[in-house]
């Protein structure tokens, strides 16, 4: 039965390659092996969002029962988003779970993820810390998300004040990544962040 999955992925792969979204560099799919059960997806951050200008990579694993069960998708590019784990890249999206339908394809999944970046669902969060920030301090959330996009996804907008804070925490002997997570999670409050790092 694995053959059905592979055969369908082959056809979908051709469909994505031919699609107009690829032409406009919005989505992309690449094969990781010739068994068609592992692929790498790429989506562009949607315009007018903190993710604009960033390029986000996704790991796509095709189960043998595809398309009767959804593909397993997670971000490999780190991202600051309420419905995506800032640690693991795991995604909370209904169509990748109980709302999956066999008529969906790699193309529709990638487009849905792009839409998710443009319209977060803070009431159904994957990352509770990010969701709280999204709801309580939207400005800080936007700056943080833009900063993460700049650092990890090649986004064009640097957040110099945030970078300064990270440099300061790093000056205390902490690792850059840990410093960033701690500061982002504590709304860039130096004191609480270092406290968290030390505990």
């Amino acid at each position, binding site marked *: 039965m694995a053959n059905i999955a592979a*055969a369908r992925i082959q056809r979908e792969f051709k*469909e994505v390659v031919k699609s107009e979204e690829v032409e406009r560099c919005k989505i992309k799919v690449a094969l990781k092996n010739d068994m068609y059960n592992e692929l790498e997806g790429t989506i562009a951050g949607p315009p007018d969002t903190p993710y604009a200008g960033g390029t986000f990579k996704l790991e796509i694993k095709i189960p043998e029962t595809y*398309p*009767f069960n959804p593909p397993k998708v997670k971000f490999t590019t780190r991202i600051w988003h309420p419905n995506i784990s800032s640690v693991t890249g795991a995604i909370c999206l209904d169509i990748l779970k109980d*709302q999956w*339908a*066999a008529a969906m394809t790699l193309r529709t999944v990638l487009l849905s993820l792009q839409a998710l970046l443009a319209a977060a669902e803070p009431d159904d969060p994957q990352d509770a810390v990010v969701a709280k920030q999204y709801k309580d301090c939207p400005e800080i959330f936007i700056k943080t998300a833009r900063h993460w996009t700049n650092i990890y996804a090649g986004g064009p907008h640097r957040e110099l004040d945030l970078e300064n804070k990270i440099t300061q925490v790093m000056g205390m002997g902490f690792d850059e990544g840990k410093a960033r997570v701690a500061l982002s999670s504590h709304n860039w409050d130096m004191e609480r962040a270092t406290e968290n790092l030390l505990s």
Partner: protein
Amino acid sequence: MASVFDTLEQKTNGDSGSYSSNVNFLTEPEDGYDFEFVNLKDDKYDCPICLLILRDPVQTPCGHRFCHKCIHRWLSESGEQRCPVDNTTVIRDQVFPDNFAKREILSLQVKCPKSKEGCKVIEVLKQLPKHLEACGYVPIPCPNECSDILLRKDLPHHLSQICTKRKIVCCKCGDQVTAEREQEHLHKECPMVTVVCQYCQLELLRNQIKSHEEFDCQRVIVPCQYQPMGCTTRLERCEMSQHLQESIQQHMNLMFSILMQLTSAVQSIAPGALHHFPAVPQSHSLPVTSSEQSITNLLETLRIGVQQQGMNVLSLNSTPVPYSPDSNASSIGGFPEPVAGSHSHGLIERNISEQTQVAPSLSYSSQQSNKDVEGGAYVSVQQEYELKSLKDQNVTQDESLARHEHQIDEIRGRNENHEKIVKDLNKRLKMLESTINEFEGRTCNGTYVWKIRNYRKYRREAEIGDTTAIHSPPFYSHFYGYKLCIRANLNGVDSARGTHLSIFIHFMQGDYDDILDWPFNGRIILTVIDQNPECELRHHVVETLISKPNLAAFQRPNTPRNHKGFGYMEFLPIGILDNSTYVRNDTLIIKACILPNG
């Protein structure tokens, strides 16, 4: 990717017997059709689940189509009761077959799945299985089970040229062998292959080699014929006669010692045999087996020898020695127990006296033969010499006989080959002749002149009703044109029977009927030629036919020769023919000129 190929491959791996059976890909519950459809622009027949063209399409109440198999798998595997396209609730029982779409899809045109291999066929989907059963680009296993798998179109070439299991006729012996065994057959089995005798290097056919080695070959090492007597000599056959010459004495010694052993053996085994012997005459009618007979003969010889010895003894002692049965018994070779009773004694004495009476004559004859031997000594040397030369001659004759036999076999084989070739050539000659006739008919360019030789004979046959009609060889209106022939009823037909010559034109099936216009449209001019040697006096009889498209005679023939002809029952009164120059040298000439319109 469930396609025709999978089905075929499974069959290849499994039992090869049912290979050409139906490919059920149109009916088996599979994913959609994975073929290259021709002129299929939109995606209305795509299954949203397998993304192929719908197979056994069904529809949901919300108006979406799926392959029967795909939607039911979705409903059961996912546990969801909703449409995969728009998420509206769908219950299994609400899904219904969309036969309209099914009919439409089955009438779509697809390229043969073997188009990449070179098949150019485009077929309606419904007819594709039928095509694939005949498609030349489908791989099939060799029916000879030679383990090759080849494209169906290559099968004839494979079977005639390549297959290792194909039967071929051995060029030497004419037996059928499989191709893979041909070399083995030639090198090890074929009786008509020339092989070299390993002993004398003579070239012989394989089927002669055994008897050659057994009886003829002069170089084979054979045992001396006195081997059973104890001669251990082994020599090439050609040296054996010399050995027999040189070893006469030795062989006689061997025979002598064997004889002696036999004598003592017989005495020890059957002491009574000698006693009984005189009482049994040679002509006695008691049934005896051959071995008994030979023992009897041997004993006879022995007895004579013994009597002779007895004679010698008697002649040495001038006074007769009183006879002692005991001593005599031992010298003769053993009477049984000493016999009691005077009656028995008397019998023995009588026996002995009989023996002594016979002995002189025996001794005489033996002396006589000795004399013969001495007297013939000179003769026997000469005879031996002659015998030797005769033997030598015999050997050379045997050799040449073997050679000749070999040559005869070879010539016979060659002759058979030639007969085959002659047969083949005859066949080809006939083919060429028919080709030439065909060409003549083609190149006449629509004007065909038919010479009916032996007119009188044909006329007679027509009169008595054996052959009422004769047909000309076929000819063509032009090189790639209509194929026709002339029919002549020399004694007329139907109402004109016995009064008129009837002439008709018949259309025939030709090679280019496909490119011609049917029914035939044009004129045909029929002429009986006046053969008067004075050109000015010639009055040809000419008639022109105009084709009639509604007549069967002018339709495209669906038999090699259209049964319906068109012409004249009363072309010329027979009476005029008989006393005229229309028939000269027993030959009637009819000319036909075919003039198609346009």
